[in-house]
């Protein structure tokens, strides 16, 4: 599978889409995590709202980086990596590149595994970049505001990175599966986006009215992702400075287990289809 991973890494790292998704995510992260929070903090200070100012300062502080980095992923970050994964597997059918790859000799599961491993490397890169950019942004803002720098512990950083990878990985697996199911990029990315951005939120809204739906909506992929982000310290969308998609429904360990389960199931379905279907 090493050959497949090297091949996929070459084509993914030279793909403008990979860099566009990475850039958009970093820009969103900085904008929503720091720029808007900083403006809100200054407003709170000038209006004398000390409680809000303290809350926002805690989020901007380097100690808040693990939470800030993770809380954008259940919804927007997840949607971005889902699109990246969906177009990277789906385009293989549109461009006929899967056919070309399969005639080179790798077993289909090795080719699929290579794609997933290369996507995982890209995700690690995105998460590490987010961490570095967020720490830098936080340090700059805190210094500019003449505030003391409180750094997160190694454990908190590991928790943030691990959580971010798990959430992003689950959405990427979902995207890769959709690309293979739909055998194309457009439908898979479109369906995935509607699910992440609309359907899950609607279902959670409806479950407020229909209690019978709750056991289902409590265990949806987005719910698990949002719960894990909250467990790491993410602020729910209903609170000031919070992020949409962050929810406090499941405990951290349950959410992490569920996310792992979803990722495994998505990859199994995708791998099975790729191996069994005519190319």
């Amino acid at each position, binding site marked *: 599978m090493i050959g497949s991973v*090297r*091949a996929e890494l*070459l*084509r993914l790292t030279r793909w403008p889409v990979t860099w566009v998704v990475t850039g958009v995510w970093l820009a969103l992260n900085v904008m929503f995590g720091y720029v808007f929070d900083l403006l809100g903090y200054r407003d709170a200070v000038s209006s004398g709202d000390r409680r809000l100012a303290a809350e926002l300062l805690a989020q901007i502080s380097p100690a808040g980086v693990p939470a800030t980095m993770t809380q954008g992923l259940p919804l927007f970050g997840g949607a971005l990596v889902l699109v990246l994964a969906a177009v990277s597997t789906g385009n293989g059918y549109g*461009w006929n590149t*899967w056919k070309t790859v399969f005639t080179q000799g790798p077993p289909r599961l090795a080719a699929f595994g290579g794609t997933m491993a290369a996507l995982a490397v890209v995700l690690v890169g995105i998460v590490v970049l987010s961490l570095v950019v967020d720490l830098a942004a936080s340090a700059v803002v805190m210094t500019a505001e003449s505030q003391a720098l409180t750094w997160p512990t190694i454990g908190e950083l590991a928790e943030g990175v691990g959580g971010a990878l798990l959430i992003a990985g689950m959405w990427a697996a979902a995207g890769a599966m959709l690309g293979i199911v739909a055998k194309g990029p457009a439908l898979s990315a479109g369906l995935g986006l509607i699910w992440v951005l609309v359907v899950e939120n609607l279902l959670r809204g409806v479950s407020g009215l229909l209690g019978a739906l709750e056991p289902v909506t409590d265990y949806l992929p987005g719910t698990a992702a949002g719960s894990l982000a909250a467990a790491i310290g993410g602020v729910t969308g209903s609170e000031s400075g919070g992020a949409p998609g962050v929810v406090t429904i499941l405990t951290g360990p349950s959410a992490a287990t569920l996310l792992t389960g979803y990722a495994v199931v998505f990859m199994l379905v995708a791998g099975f289809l790729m191996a069994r279907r005519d*190319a």
Partner: protein
Amino acid sequence: MQEPVVVTERLTKRYGHQVAVDAVSLTVRRGEIYGFLGPNGAGKTTTLRMLLGLVRPTRGRARVLGGRPGERSVLRRVGALVEDPGFYPYLSGRDNLRVLARYRRLPDTVADQALEQVDLGGRGRDRFRSYSLGMKQRLGVAAALLGEPDLLILDEPTNGLDPAGMADMRRLVRRLTDQGQTVLLSSHLLGEVQQICDRVGVIAAGRLLTESTVADLRGTRTLVVRAEPVARAGEVIEIGLGLPVRPFDGGGLQVDADPDRTPEVVRTLVTAGVDVHEVRPSERTLEEAFFAMTEDNGPEETT
């Protein structure tokens, strides 16, 4: 005797009620250029896809280089271009080949060698999406050449090429077989097949109609006779020599006789007082042979 490179036994592919390939049994021998000939939609590409393991046969079996189609050890020794060349449009031709070389566990440098072989060395760093149809096709062939495979499966390799490009491609294919590689190429261009193939398999409506050498497929040679009066000439040849005669374009006669009998035909006509203007051997073109065959077994509803 060496094992054939490709053997299929009643290979069949059905899509619902549609039979795309119907019990095709063909044999490709080592070191030959085998032409897989048929009109568009005859089942050529589906057969090739089955030989590459891209499509599972509904029935029948195939052996490629002694193994199962699609098996890793087999595919490592096969280079293929099937249908449109499938490449990443945003990558350069060179990077596309490097990606495929990595899949084959070959060093990146083989990409440059393959580009040179198809005369794309100068454009290797340009993006695939900027390539002309002919360049895309040549890159497809370059991809098939990676790792010097024992068997090349080329589906319509001259598609989109201009006449010079087609001639280059034919030269390349011949050079490959000179080096000992076996080539299985599909085509609907009869002239192309006639020029370069050792043997051909003719497929129409999913069925393999025949498999033979090009010479055998073209069949016996005939004589074309132009003589006056033409009716008298026909009588003399038919009755006097017992040879079947048919009218030929422009008032001539076509005689089912080997060209060795030319002197005898001329002598008989002259003795009978017929003015002989022309006697020449005539061979069926592959095109004539092909149409004769596909008209008899023309496309049918396969539902």
